[in-house]
């Protein structure tokens, strides 16, 4: 199948690649651009390990075709920190031991960041339902929820 030239923006950088029309955005990020922070845990949109934002919308990049990213803005885990400065969510995840194996962590961080942009003051229940599409098999979610709530509190304080 002939490949399609795709021009997109990934974490603010202009990126071009040739995509087979059958390839997912996740495949393109990982195999063509070398951004392996987004993970494939299922390939069916159930686990959320591949979460990225596409023009600001939270998506499972395994359910988006690479060619669909043409002309759009993609944000991945690799763009979350501001240079050497971690996003508060990233800091809080380390501080709260909110990761064990760390495989689901990039997707959860991307999803949680979108939550806090949408709702800066979520309840525990809101955090749990927002992250219900991101599977973690190691932690039982307890420390993840605490880290997100704590990061939310810090961000609110910064904003105030």
């Amino acid at each position, binding site marked *: 199948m002939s490949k399609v030239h795709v021009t997109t923006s990934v974490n603010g950088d202009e990126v071009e690649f040739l995509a087979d029309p059958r390839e997912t955005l996740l495949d393109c990020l990982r195999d063509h651009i070398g951004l*392996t*922070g987004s993970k494939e*845990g299922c390939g069916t949109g159930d686990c959320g390990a591949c979460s990225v934002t596409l023009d600001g919308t939270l998506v499972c990049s395994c359910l988006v075709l690479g060619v669909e990213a043409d002309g759009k803005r993609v944000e991945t885990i690799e763009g979350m920190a501001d240079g050497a400065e971690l996003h508060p969510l990233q800091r809080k995840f*380390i501080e709260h031991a909110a990761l064990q*194996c760390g*495989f689901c962590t*990039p997707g959860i961080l991307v999803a949680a960041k979108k939550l806090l942009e949408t709702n800066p003051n979520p309840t525990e229940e809101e955090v*749990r339902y927002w992250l219900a599409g991101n599977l973690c098999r190691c*932690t*039982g979610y307890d420390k993840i929820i605490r880290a997100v709530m704590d990061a939310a509190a810090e961000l609110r304080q910064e904003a105030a």
Partner: protein
Amino acid sequence: MAKDEFKEFKLVGTRPDRPDGLDKVTGRARYGADISAPGMLWAAVLRSPHAHARIVKIDTSKAEALTGVKAVITRADFPTGLTGEDWNLQENTMAGERALYDGHAVAAVAATSKLRAEEAVRLIEVEYEVLPHVIDVDDAIKPDAPVIREGAADATVPEGMPPNVVRYMEFGRGDVEAGFAEADLVMEKTYKTEATHQGYIEPHACMGQLGADGKGEMWVCTQGQWFIRKMCTAVLGLETAQLRVTPSEIGGGFGGKTTIFMEPLSLALSKKAGGKPVKLVMSRSDVLRATGPTASASMDVKIGMKKDGTITGARAEFRMQGGAFPGSPVDMALYCAFAPYKLTNVEHVGYDVLANRPKCAAYRAPGSPMGAFAVESLLDEMCRELDVDPLDMRLKNAVREGDTASYGPKYGSIGLVETLEATKAHPNLSIPLGPNQGRGIAAGYWFNHNGETSVSMAISEDGTAQVSVGTPDIGGSRASIALMTAETLGIPYEDVRVNVVETGALGVNEPTHGSRATFASGKAAVIAAGHAITEMCKRAANEWGIDPEAVEWVDGAAQPAGDNAGKFPPMSIAEIAGKMGSTGGPISGHHESVPEGVGASFGCHVVDVEVDPETGRTTILRYLVVQDAGRAIHPAYVEGQYQGGAAQGIGWALNEAYIYGDDGRLQNTVFLDYRVPVASDLPMIDTVIVEVPNPGHPYGVRGVGETGITPPLPAIANAIQEATGARLCELPMSPPKVLAAIKAKGG
């Protein structure tokens, strides 16, 4: 109670950031599928659509003719003549004469792209002769069941047993019949648990390279790089030392990544493709269909109890299928079933049975959750019947140091009584419950494995330290090992770097399994650091011109041991390290052993549930884990093990199960259908870390990783009975089953 209250250590018991945290929150950490190499090919695997079928013919010609295809392999490309577990591993890696389960690999392809490899696999033509199959363990043990494999039974199986029984065991002591005769109440019930999958979010992935000279390399997500090396080389007929295996970061394992499934395929394809590296990544459906779930079980338990709660006799007969190969954890299930209780009359009988399912692998405390489901459920019912408090009953019968375990050996220092007492004192137990709510309690047990362990520690020129360990870090073991090493050396935590190294760098290490990484690699690291300290004291003594015996190590520096030794200012680790080149060369410590002194861990869980009487849906309202850690080196990651184990147990209890169609095909091969607990399913999980130090470890460590998955199964069943009056003896306790049980009792 919290570990943080210990004052005798500077670092042990604190909660610093884990050393690999930054890599893991930025996406930099490299897992199994995250590596590529020049000239790399992609592999894809063709799998059997049948549960049991003779492979009449495989035609690979069309696949081979496709542009970009560099190698196609079938079983014909593997060496012959293997025996025992090596043959099992080879047969499971690639089917021989017969496909033994839905998803069994029958051929594999390497091509220039992933899509091309997948296209090629679809061009392979396989002619199957479908054979009768059997899935359920109680069906598989019938005398007239379809025979999975002639001659698979080992010497333990007596003459005349059904053909799919491949291992048989019976052990015990005392006289159970006399024990039952002594009891005021004797109850007997049958329980069933379905297979569940470890459900690690990272699918198996590797990149293998093998030359015609028999030398190879592999990058792989695994719990144990030496196991991968040994198993791959055995399956492919290679010399073990010629394969170098580097572990990637690992995206969860829970026992499922202690063995091989498809790794030899990448090596065999690489060799056939002229030594090009070959990357092979499983899909989720491959993971569920063809990698080790746990066993399914059918269990009879009979217990006798006096009015005061004393257990007078106990008998367990467990039947477990672990797929088409021997190896279900029926032995471990029996060892753990009555482990919390002091028994004089106890009897165990176990059957390991073959069925047309994938080869089971270890899953967190293998066998223990099933046995606990049966035993702890029955004990709870008996407590209700006799109106005995379930915690008091457990305390009355609890094993203590010096008692003989139900499975034979004498317990050393254990913390069951302390765990039960801490449970009893917890405020969660006095929270009032509302209508349709119930509280369940259950205990659980798991061992602490030692295993081959080799660790090297080296002091750097600036006095910082590196530790090379062979146990992959799944849940924070770099942090715990760095804490113990730093504590021993008397240097800051940040001055220690723990590296998980490849097979070429150390002697043989068993995997991160059996709750052993912090115990075994940690103990070896502490001993290795001790060797380095001895050497550094010697260097200082030489410089001071005093006897090395007269030097002691305090707070990261050598100093004369008392005034008689001489008056010299302390010589810091940095000072000693800075001149190592002129004082005798590199300073390091090394230790290898099968470390003695393992510390088993008991736990007790309390769960509050609410059951919707209209739908049968169970909601977990609150959850408490109390468990003996010996000593928590990094309490946050100990809590993490408790919480993670509980969550997996909750999934197993309420929702997870392998569902097969009548055709023997697995029906739920994606996460949408094999539904593990999500964040909105669970409450916060409260933890209490009990610390009864293990005298066999320099810092008192017990293995904590596995016990936590054991009590949830019965604890939730017990809570559901209290909430509804209905007793569930079969997992999962999904809404339809709970509703049916409520209706059956006329509720």
